[in-house]
């Protein structure tokens, strides 16, 4: 089983290297980007099937001794990593197949495909690795791939800026994350995930709040949570399949995966759980509002991603690890589907703007139906997978007790508000894209439906988006699959019941229905208008992402630039003054000496002779002086 996990990591690496080596040969690039990823999909399914429901399987080999620590290269297969591995390979395969035609006219397709493969490998490394340092390597490779892929259209200014922004913002979180891992590993005496987890579970962790906060910083940066969320909407400057793979389904989910993996560390710090809940509450509500106001469909989906990731963070804050992981999986499926569908629509319409769309229901029937499934799953329409996973989180938050009570209340209240907001923006997106009049602006009417390479991934992803949620009906089945409530290291007596029940489901359903009716009513009265006017005075701030970028600019960027200017002034005017001064001084002295060089050889000789006399006299004086001392 561990061999297959290793193969799952290695296959995309090989694919990436082969694609890179192939240069601009298009057929070569196509084969080597799709085939290894598809093979990794098969091996990841084998891993999942072989793992079953029990425990962690570990196979390692010593990579390198590093001082008093040793780096271990190896795989750790648990229920959690097997499930997430399957999610990653499914989405990656879909994206690679989809890109065959979507990126057909792109000159840089081979580089793009190679980077996607490399990214997939890095994500699988994070999922399956046994060593925290190796995990960090995968984590950073993902960040680098994300940078390159956001900047894929580097001839456009916004893409360049977005790439740099994404890299810098996630790095802001990664630096504390590195320190967190270092503290954890040094305290535990090993960087092996299993060793660290068992050591933490035995209750010996000191400075738990500090460690958990440092780790949370990395999670907040990678998973685009407030206040480090603003890179994700801008990252939509990259190609649409990249948004589906990296910025919706996998990389941003890596942060949540990490919290689920190192859950005992966070359990040891109840204060950090409350902090997580507050971050999640702010993020989920704010970004849902922002999603409602956006006019670019990819930005709507980006803010929606931020909001849904906040649900997972909220679920983790209230002890609902199983619920959060379940939402991670279902969200990965339906959000990748939404982005790929959005790509089809953008190619069809020739614009990202909602105002250029409408009436696509008959022109793109398959896209319409698959995206409807995904949106229903996003809203949480009963019996779709998003319904089960979101209700599981809300139910856990509602019923939270003990140390989870305080974060539970925060998450439950804001989670229910966000359910209504989610329904509102999803309805708006659905109505504006597929219903109403078709604007005249569309360039061509010849292509009715996208090519099959783009439709098949949509249909494939629609299956888990629709029916994955039924695993929740197995009571504790899903929880036991991913290692109990708190992971393999802490044994829990019974696994969380993920079935939707109780009052939260009812409230959530009523709120969602109310929001749907409100938006639908508004749209019915004037199909050409934007239902975002419902936000009233909030609309403008929400469109601008509540000016978070401006605040960050004011609080961080401008002071940093000011400091840089001071340093620049000190450098050019103070330090350089000394450097220039030596030059000017030497020049002046040289000018004096130059006057002596008259060319009169007798003057030179006189100077030479008097110099010899001076030296001789000085030597005699010195020798007499020292002789006198001896005497």
């Amino acid at each position, binding site marked *: 089983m561990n061999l297959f996990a290793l193969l799952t990591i290695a296959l995309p690496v090989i694919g990436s290297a082969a694609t890179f080596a192939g240069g601009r040969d298009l057929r070569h690039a196509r084969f080597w980007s799709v085939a290894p990823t598809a093979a990794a999909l098969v091996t990841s399914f084998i891993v999942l099937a072989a793992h079953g429901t029990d425990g962690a399987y570990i196979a390692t080999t010593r990579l390198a001794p590093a001082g008093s620590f040793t780096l271990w290269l190896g795989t750790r297969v648990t229920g959690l990593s097997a499930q997430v591995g399957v999610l990653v390979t499914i989405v990656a395969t879909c994206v690679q197949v989809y890109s065959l035609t979507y990126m057909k006219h792109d000159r840089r397709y081979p580089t793009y495909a190679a980077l996607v493969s490399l990214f997939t490998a890095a994500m699988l490394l994070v999922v399956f690795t046994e060593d925290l340092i190796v995990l960090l390597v995968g984590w950073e490779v993902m960040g680098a791939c994300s940078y390159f892929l956001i900047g894929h259209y580097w001839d456009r200014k916004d893409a360049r800026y977005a790439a740099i922004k994404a890299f810098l913002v996630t790095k802001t979180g990664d630096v504390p994350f590195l320190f967190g891992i270092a503290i954890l590993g040094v305290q535990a005496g090993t960087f092996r995930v299993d060793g660290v987890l068992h050591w933490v579970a035995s209750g010996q962790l000191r400075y738990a709040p500090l460690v958990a906060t440092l780790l949370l910083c990395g999670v907040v940066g990678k998973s685009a949570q407030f206040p480090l969320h603003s890179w994700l909407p801008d990252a939509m400057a990259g190609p649409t399949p990249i948004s589906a793979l990296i910025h919706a389904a996998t990389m941003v989910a890596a942060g949540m995966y990490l919290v689920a993996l190192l859950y005992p560390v966070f359990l040891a710090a109840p204060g950090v759980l409350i902090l997580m809940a507050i971050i999640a509450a702010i993020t989920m509500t704010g970004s849902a509002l922002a999603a409602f106001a956006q006019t670019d469909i990819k930005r709507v989906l980006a803010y929606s991603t931020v909001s849904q990731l906040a649900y997972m963070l909220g679920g983790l804050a209230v002890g609902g690890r199983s619920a959060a992981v379940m939402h991670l999986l279902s969200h990965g499926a339906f959000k990748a589907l939404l982005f790929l569908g959005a790509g089809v629509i953008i190619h069809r319409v020739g614009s990202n703007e909602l105002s250029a769309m409408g009436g696509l229901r008959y022109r793109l029937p398959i896209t319409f139906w698959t995206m409807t499934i995904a949106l229903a799953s996003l809203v949480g329409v009963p019996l779709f997978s998003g319904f089960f996973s979101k209700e599981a989180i809300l139910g856990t938050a509602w019923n939270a007790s003990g140390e989870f009570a305080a974060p539970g209340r925060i998450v439950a209240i804001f989670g229910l508000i966000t359910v209504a907001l989610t329904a509102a923006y999803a309805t708006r997106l659905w109505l504006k894209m597929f219903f109403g009049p078709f604007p005249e602006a569309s360039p061509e009417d010849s292509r009715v439906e996208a090519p099959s390479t783009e439709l098949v991934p949509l249909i494939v992803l629609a299956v888990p988006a629709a029916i994955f949620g039924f695993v929740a009906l197995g009571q504790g089945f899903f929880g036991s699959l991913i290692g109990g409530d708190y992971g393999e290291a802490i044994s829990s007596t019974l696994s969380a019941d993920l079935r939707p029940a109780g009052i939260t489901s009812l409230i959530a359903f009523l709120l969602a229905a109310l929001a749907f009716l409100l938006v639908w009513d508004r749209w019915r009265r004037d199909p050409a208008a934007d239902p975002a006017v419902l936000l009233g005075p909030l609309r403008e701030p929400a469109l601008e992402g509540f000016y978070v970028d401006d605040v960050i600019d004011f609080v961080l960027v401008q002071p940093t630039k000011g400091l840089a200017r001071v340093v620049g002034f000190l450098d050019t005017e103070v330090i350089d003054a000394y450097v220039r001064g030596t030059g000017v001084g030497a020049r002046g002295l040289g000018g004096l000496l130059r006057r002596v060089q*008259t060319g009169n050889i007798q003057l030179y000789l006189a100077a030479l002779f008097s110099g010899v006399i001076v030296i001789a006299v000085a030597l005699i004086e010195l020798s007499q002086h020292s002789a006198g001392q001896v005497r």
Partner: protein
Amino acid sequence: MHAVYPLLLGALLFAIGLYGVLARRNAITILMAIELLLNAVTINLIAFGSLLSQFPGVDPYNVGQVFTLFVITIAAAETGLGLAIVLMIYRQRGTAAVDEQRDLAEPLRGPVDETEPGARRPLQTTEAGP
């Protein structure tokens, strides 16, 4: 003989030679003065050589006298070379006055950048016009 006499003679010769080298303008006079300087030194060499020969074993090879022979030889060669140079200078410039040979003086307007094109080009002589 007391050692002070030859040393005094040497010093006297050296002073005369130094005066000749530093103060006279004619290049041939300066060459002669240089000969005086060399001879002052050889007198010193011989004086110290005979002084040391009183102590057996200190100077078994008579280094003072040997070096005097060397110096005389080199002085002859040097004078020949120097006279040739003076002759060439006189032929070229019509004068052998040392203080007029100042081509190597540092130009007071600052050094010339030799990498610049045309910096060392000789002055263009205009061909005869119409």
